[in-house]
């Protein structure tokens, strides 16, 4: 279901193309060091055709389109928080119908040969938007849905979401005297999406840009709906240093907190550093290395809360074991 010829991104050529087209223009108001700022550029770099971009409500939507300014040099539409996949369905269906009717064929100002990308944050994907994504995937709309997961409602001031990890401090899971951070684990969003039988799903850490770009491209090439779970460091919400954004994106992979893999027509395949960790388990770093760079986990390093780090590690290990089995290790 996914094209077999592997695209090999050339960073020099990508830079030249971006220099000409600048799909995402500077001057947006994402925070300094925002991971999503890197993700949206990488999605655009990996495009094989012109894009129509649908965005759920969230940081990216708010920060890139503060009226009267727009950062988008691609056609872009935001409707609401929970319905981006439904909007994408409508765009894709319309494109199909207009193209087969040869509508605008005599209008040189209109282009109908494009891919539809839908971008949502963890709130718009794990929580409020889950239903519309499920519907769009069941209907097999040819859209690429990218989740940029910064693991809380950052846009509204760091409230917990279904994507917030265990132990994390948010403004609705504060570190209190009784309950310390979020007592629950992340929803298995990849499993939920893969269960729809879609032709392509993958996880992406923008730090591994080559891996990320190839996966975004494969998502565009998929013969049907594709889902990509992109890891998105949030300096503001995570209490991390802006300059550490990419470093944290690497550590998430190296600790197996966020393993890299793809699921092609139901077949699991590890990619990037996750392959070498699978082959050489010694290379798997302890979760502390990932946790310690982030203020949201600081309380877990107090001696009386050490059990939280252990529990976090236990969960990561278990998830990793399940994935290894699925990927044939």
């Amino acid at each position: 279901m996914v094209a077999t010829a592997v695209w090999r991104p050339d960073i020099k050529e990508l830079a030249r193309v971006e220099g000409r087209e600048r799909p995402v223009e500077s001057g947006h108001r994402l925070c300094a060091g925002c991971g999503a700022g890197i993700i949206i550029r990488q999605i655009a770099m990996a495009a094989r055709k012109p894009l129509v971009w649908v965005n759920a409500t969230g940081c990216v939507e708010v920060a890139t389109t503060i009226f009267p300014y727009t950062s988008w040099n691609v056609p872009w539409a935001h409707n609401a928080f929970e319905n981006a996949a439904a909007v994408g369905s409508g765009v894709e269906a319309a494109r199909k119908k207009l193209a087969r009717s040869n509508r605008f064929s005599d209008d040189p100002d209109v282009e109908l040969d494009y891919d539809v990308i839908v971008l949502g944050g963890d709130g718009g994907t794990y929580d409020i938007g889950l239903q519309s994504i499920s519907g769009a995937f069941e209907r097999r709309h040819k859209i690429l849905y990218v989740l940029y997961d910064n693991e809380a409602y950052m846009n509204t001031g760091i409230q917990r979401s279904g994507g917030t990890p265990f132990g994390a401090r948010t403004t609705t899971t504060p570190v209190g005297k009784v309950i310390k951070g979020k007592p629950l684990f992340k929803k298995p969003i990849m499993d939920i999406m893969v269960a729809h039988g879609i032709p392509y799903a993958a996880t992406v850490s923008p730090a591994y840009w080559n891996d990320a770009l190839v996966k975004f491209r494969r998502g565009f090439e998929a013969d049907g709906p594709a889902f990509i779970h992109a890891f998105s460091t949030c300096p503001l919400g995570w209490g991390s240093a802006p300059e550490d954004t990419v470093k944290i994106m690497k550590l998430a992979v190296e600790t197996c907190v966020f393993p890299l893999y793809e699921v092609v027509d139901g077949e699991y395949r590890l990619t990037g550093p996750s392959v070498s960790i699978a082959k050489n388990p010694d290379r798997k770093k302890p979760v502390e290395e990932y946790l310690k760079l982030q203020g949201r986990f600081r309380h877990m390093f107090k001696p009386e809360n050490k059990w939280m780090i252990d529990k976090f590690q236990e969960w990561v290990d278990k998830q990793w074991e399940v994935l290894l089995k699925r990927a044939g290790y």
Partner: protein
Amino acid sequence: MSTPMVGWKDLPMAAIPFLSAREYPTGEWAVFQPKIDESKCVRCGLCWMYCPDSVYRWDGEGVPVPDLDHCKGCGICATECPTKAIEMVRV
């Protein structure tokens, strides 16, 4: 930086933005901005790749050039530069 104030009669319909964000100088946010030591730069392009603000201009050959009018000074480029060719200096 002042945003033009247009009345309702002159605004395009449907609340569509009419200015490019490049006209909004987010470089004013920065406390530190990158300074590149060209002698150390190996032209790998990672500063360009990892910039969340599309700030680096790179022709794929020479030394990438940051657009300081828009650089917010996050410092990712300096952290990720494999040869430590980038120094964040106070603006």
